[in-house]
């Protein structure tokens, strides 16, 4: 079991899951929101091509959670549609 956090909640995923697969297995379908109307967005392509699953992971915005492997202790959050503050 791999423990991680989603919006402060403690969740468990399985070894070898991507972040998105683990969230889905926990019943979490809303991964992001559209920019203007803030409509909920979910998983669509699963291969890193559609940008529907961008989330903040360990403080890093715009992570494609559908292709990034889940790791112990990861802190996964919904992000503002623009990806939050720019960090240069």
């Amino acid at each position, binding site marked *: 079991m791999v423990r991680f956090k989603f919006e402060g909640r403690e969740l468990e995923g*399985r070894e*070898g*899951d*991507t972040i998105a*697969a683990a969230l*889905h*297995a926990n019943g979490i*379908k*809303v*991964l992001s929101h*559209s920019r203007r109307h803030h*409509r*909920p*967005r*979910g*998983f*669509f*392509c*699963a*291969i*890193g*091509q*559609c940008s529907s699953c961008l989330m903040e*992971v360990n403080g*890093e915005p715009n*992570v494609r959670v*559908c*292709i*990034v*492997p889940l790791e112990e202790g990861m802190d996964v959050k919904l992000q503002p549609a623009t990806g939050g503050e720019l960090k240069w």
Partner: protein
Amino acid sequence: MVNTDLLVVGGGPAGLAAADTAASLGIDVLLVDEGRAVGGQLVKQTHKFFGSGEHYAGVRGIDIPKLLNREENSQRVRILTDTTVVGCYEDGVVSALTGEDNYFKIKAKRAIFATGATEKFLSFPGNDLPGVYGAGAVQTLMNQFGVIPGKRVLMVGAGNIGIIVSYQLLQAGVPVAAVVEAAPTIGGYLVHASKLARAGVPILTRHTILEARGKDAVESAVIAQLDDNWQVVPGTEEEVDVDVVCLAVGLSPVVDLLRQLGCEMKYVPELGGHVPIRDKNLKTATGWIYVAGDVAGVEEASAAMVEGRLAGAAAAAELGADKQEADTVISRCLASLDALRGGPVGEKIRSGIAKLEGGAVNA
């Protein structure tokens, strides 16, 4: 800066075959793939392959990468997974990102782009709701991660992919409310379609999805019948109770990087959309870039592998491999592609490729 003779971008069947062939002709290869493991679309294909024996028919898709990633070539092929090519520059420098923060540049003498294809979208109200998935994503969830996508599915598209994924959903215990197909006939192989029919899943030809409804995720979908002019027949609208809408309406080539490089494109619907212009050996006019597999035109894994071998051999020849050996591989591949694209099944692809060879460029 990482220097390499041959860079292969994408480790699906096309990229793996390209790397394997170039390596067996004595060329050092760097292969990068943004996924967790190589295999591309194949890693989710638990079904046995259709196609001819020479091209792994009867082998399960998930087992093919092993056949392509051979021990004897491992010295010559360096594979980096979790590595995305993010930029391409005219001076032949390619930039890549491993994980979230290891950014580096690659300078390659030749590169083969085998970035595959991505699911096509359909426009209807609610198409952006969570619960609307591409068929490949449903396969990824179920077959790769063992996670079911939802409780009840509406499948849109009755081509091979829509039919196979529907059947896999049933195998995973997820009911399929119906398969809707706008065309008047089922596109997929009838053996698979009849398995669905026997399981009681209606395959509704001349039907389409009008809307997905729900608040934070799909709660239902509205379908309706189409007439001969593809217009909705009033009064046939029906709301089906599903939490997943799965789109299997085709794939389109992932050509963004090639565009960055200034590769000339042409819109060829038979090949899935905008595809790079290239010669018979799959070389583009850039002089150092080849393409292979679905990125060059959406076909099947068998053709992708042969295209990979063809591009791998052609690039190897330019990089100093034994010319005769390379030429033998090239002619074998060309013959093999002709055979794969022969007959009525290959007609669409043949006419698509014919359009690439002549005619005006309308990129």
